[in-house]
């Protein structure tokens, strides 16, 4: 499959994520959109890694070039999972305090 398809897909996912973050006020949806952007990038990373590796294999059957990126992706997923747990915990605490998950409430922190 040509690399362009992956790029378009990732672009679409990333844009959806951005638009979601910008337009929605519900903290959980915002959070989901952030995850969406993160995963768009992950997907792009994997796709580029695969393409890179495939091209390297054409010259050398045992080449491992580009394969590290796939390891990075796992790391990112692990870190993202940790981040999600922290983020969700914050949202839960927020809901307990103000009975709302509207992010515009957060601006009262500024005072």
């Amino acid at each position: 499959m040509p690399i362009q398809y992956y790029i378009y897909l990732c672009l679409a996912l990333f844009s959806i994520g951005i638009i979601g973050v910008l337009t929605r006020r519900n903290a959980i949806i915002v959070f989901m959109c952030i995850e969406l952007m993160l995963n768009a990038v992950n997907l792009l990373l994997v796709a580029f890694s695969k393409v890179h590796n495939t091209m390297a294999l054409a010259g050398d059957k045992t080449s491992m070039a580009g394969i590290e990126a796939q390891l990075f992706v796992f790391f990112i997923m692990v870190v993202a999972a940790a981040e999600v747990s922290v983020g969700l915990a914050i949202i839960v605490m927020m809901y307990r305090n103000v009975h709302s998950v509207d992010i515009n409430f957060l601006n009262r922190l500024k005072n």
Partner: protein
Amino acid sequence: MSKLVYLVPLFPLLGFLVNGLFRKSLSKQLIGIIGSGAMLASFVVSLLVFFDVKNGGGATVHLFDFIHVGSLVIPFEFLVDPLSSLFLLIITGIGFLIHLYSTAYMHEEEPMHFGRYFAYLNLFVFSMLLLILGANYVIMFIGWEGVGLCSYLLIGFWFKNNNYNAAAKKAFIMNRIGDLGFLLAVFWLIVKLGTVSYASVFAAVSQLSATDITIITTLLFVGAMGKSAQIPLYTWLPDAMAGPTPVSALIHAATMVTAGIYMIARSNILYTMAPATQTLVAVIGLSTAIFAATIALKQNDIKKVLAYSTVSQLGYMFLGLGVGSYTGAVFHVMTHAFFKALLFLGAGSVIHAMHHEQDITKMGGLKSKLPITHITFLLGCLAIAGVPPFSGFFSKDEILMAAYNTNPIFYYVGMGGALLTAFYMFRLYSLTFLGNFRGTAHQQEHLHESPSAMTIPLMVLAFFAVVAGFVGIPELFAPDAHALEHFLAPVFAGSAALTHAHHLEASTEWILMGTATVLILIVILYAVTKFKKYTSTETNTGIAKVLENKWYIDELYDTIIVKPLFWKANFLKNTIEKYVIDGAVNGVGKLVGYGSRQFRLVQSGQVGSYILMMVMAVAFFIIIWFNDNTIMHFIHKIF
């Protein structure tokens, strides 16, 4: 001996430094001794230099290079020749007498101001000596500016009186106008000849075109107009009376006002080659002579009369220069220095006795109370009026004869001025010394002759005012008896070679001289009889009122120059400064403040808007990235 000429200005400079720096710790007596002693030392050296020059000495003394830029070299040199050595004698000799006189005249001052006074006096004499001795126009200019500065300092010596400060400023500004002309002339010389030393300028004078010479001489004359108080820049000199009387004597007799005469006499060859300028000099000189004399007729301040008489006499000197009688002009400088110093110091003695009363209508009958002052003052009056055989007769006669030679009209107008001189001087004399006392009883009780420190200079000056004329006996009386002309001949040799003097018929000269003398004597008798019985204080009307108000020249200058200048300055201050300059400065500040206030609102605390802006910025840069690499290049360079 001429090599030691640098000592002449050195002594007054040291006197200035010592008196100026230690004026708070020195006693008045010591200050007086230092100030006068410096002058005496200078005078002794001047005498030695003079006799050295008289015996054929004279030299250019090179001290160091003052300016050395590219091909332009301006050395710090002193020129010792007959002209400068004669001026040295006048300045240091009369200067010394005035210093001596000042020790008594200024005794009421506090020690600090007393020291300041003597420091200024010494600096004044130092500057004048520098002016005289300099061997090029630049050194002359240093002295030229120096005397301007010192006159400012001394005229405004009693700086607590605002009128005196105004007079000082007037003197300074009038002088500055003249100085500009002088400076331009020097620059012109540098551009055209690349040198300012007298010797090389006068040697190269034939390389200059006629236009150049005319312009240079005219510009130099503008400088002389300011310094020597000629029309139209003369108004500062009468106002300079604000200073202490000995200062007036110094300004009028020994230093300052003679600078212009000296400068033109020094540059005589330039002037001889510029007939147009010479005519201008003669006309300006003559008009000043007659104009100032008319003003002096109606002045009632003893010092004002003398001041206008100085302006008038300076006019005669310029007339002499203008008609090519350089010796006559220098001769008149010399005799005038004696009798004008005498008259001013005599006036100072009168003022001293009258407790600072200067109005002659309130004097009278001082003859018996101030015998020495009276006799010496009378001799001074006779000398300035030109009564033979007093000194003024010889010098004035020489100038007027030369004027007759050039143009008889000059002679007749000049003669008229001389009659006016005789009239106002004897009006002054009669009002002051003859008749009845018109002052207050308190003043009458305290009338006293001045101390000997004041009368001795008067007597010395009176002696010279009487006999100084005999160094210039005209050819008419005894052939080859004009000692001064022989002495100065080397300086004016260049000019003499260019002009072929034709002497007047002896009979014409006798007639002119005789008529003049008789007329002067008649005028003197008339003035004395008219003012001896002066009692009333009639108010002047018509032309007399105009004369009393000095032809309203000050008012005229005020209207056509000072007022419009103030108006412009006010316009700049109130409109341009306030709205344009301040508007721009404050406007920038306000703009930044307003912009900041508006821009601050961007930071609203809405997280969403921050993100939106972030995204938009990134999008913006991406668009640039894809569209124009040069902009990104630029941005890379910055960060």
